[in-house]
């Protein structure tokens, strides 16, 4: 992969990667760090990675960095009584999407990650299993559970009123 190809990847995937990481970890500073780390690792291996596989490499790296940092921070998070999600005031979202994204925070992290990869990036089960290290059937089960959970959450009046 050449430097030009690398720079094209930055233009093409930095935003998508940032959205995925931000929605997964709910912390914009941490998300920025993870995106920068992911691209830094891509650059370090720029001569060994094909441009075609770079996107998958970026998402895999970002996911693993997130998991690692999340483990390190888990002690700190346990001290917090509840997750404090960053406020999402975005007029571009429809009401349903706003509720849906709030509901996303109530899902377990693994379910959140796989459903984001599926919906945001359109990855197949096979690709998601490569990124997350899960089996294809596990990926399917997690996505199904996530959808059912989201359906129930957005179907409840409390979620709408929240």
């Amino acid at each position, binding site marked *: 992969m050449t430097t030009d190809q690398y720079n094209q990847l930055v233009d093409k995937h930095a*935003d998508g990667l940032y*959205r995925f990481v931000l929605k997964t970890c709910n912390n914009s500073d941490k998300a920025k760090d993870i995106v*920068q780390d992911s691209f830094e690792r891509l650059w370090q291996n720029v001569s060994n990675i094909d441009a075609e596989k770079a996107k998958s490499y970026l998402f895999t790296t970002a996911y693993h960095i997130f998991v690692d940092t999340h483990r390190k921070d888990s002690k700190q998070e346990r001290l917090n009584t509840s997750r404090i999600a960053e406020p999402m005031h975005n007029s*571009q979202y429809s009401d349903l*999407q706003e509720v*849906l994204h709030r509901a996303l925070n109530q899902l377990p992290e693994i379910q959140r990650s796989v459903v984001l990869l599926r*919906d*945001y990036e359109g990855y197949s089960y096979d690709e998601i299993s490569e990124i997350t290290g899960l089996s294809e059937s596990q990926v399917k089960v997690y996505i199904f559970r996530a959808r059912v959970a989201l359906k129930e959450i957005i179907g409840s009046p409390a979620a709408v009123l929240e």
Partner: protein
Amino acid sequence: MKITTANYEEYALDYMAGELQGEAYTDFCRFLNENPQIKNQLENLNEVVLEPSISSEFNTETLKKKLPAEGEALSLACFDYLENNFTRTERINFEKKILVFPVAKAELAALASTVLEPDLHLIFPYKQKLKRFAFPLFFGYAARTVLGVAAATIIYFGIRTAIETQNFASDLNQSVAINDSMLIPQLNNSNKKIELPYSKEQIQKIKSQRSSNKANLNQNASRKNTSTGIKLAANTQVTEQPTMQELLLNPLNAGQLLTKNALSTEKINIQTLAMVFPKNTVEESSEYKSITNVLIEKFKRNVLKIDQKTPINAMVLAESGINGIGKMTNSFFQLKTQKNSDGKPTYWAFEAGKFSIERQIKKNISE
């Protein structure tokens, strides 16, 4: 059958469970009547029978596999339909047989509404910082590497040519003469006339005086506050040599450095000033070779980073220069030399990633 204290335990549990019958039961009852303490013990044993706690029972329901409930099966079918997990035939069947029911349509719509849409206005703010500058390529090499190699080559041949054509040794040994215009501004307060340069005889006299002063320095160390002590202190100050760099760049400043302390004292030893800047003759210049040596030592240690015993030659300078440029430009090229026991280079090798060249040094490189 005779039941005694030695064998009564065999019958005790059967007795307590009500399973002891016939002659054995009669004998055991008689034994208990004869031994009331054992009878008492057996009655208490009834209280320690463990009974299973209902609350601590393991919920085996959690282990059982359930058939998918009707609603869950419908959700799963709708999910597979939405996720394109069906074959073409399965899709058609689903649409014909399941989707005709309103409840299935509602379930499908509910699940379809859970598809997340990315917020396209959410963008990564530091995208430009992630980008890398692309160096133009020359024959497959990055311009950075090519420029580094070119600069290193120019430095190598430049230094080599310069060393071969010029005699640096004579320059380094050259002393800098001082004249009246340099010293007079510093000596306005002294009210003494200075005549420089001194004659050879005068300098010889000054030298002997300084030697004498040095010899007496330790003896008079305790008399620092006396006039003699001040004079000796002044003499001590001027023995500090200016660096060659100071002398070459600005002789006046070098002289100020040396005389600053001496001039601030009440009695100024002009003779010692003259000793710092003697007339440039072969005889006198030999006294100041130490300055050269100090400079060379510092240059070897701080710039070339070589052992003090290793002589400075074109190869050593080129090695240091090329490797320094390699580090500065972050390029993968370096010059390595192999030296013999005398410290003189016998082989050199230049490496620049895919390109490398090595040669034996046949010609003796001058120092």
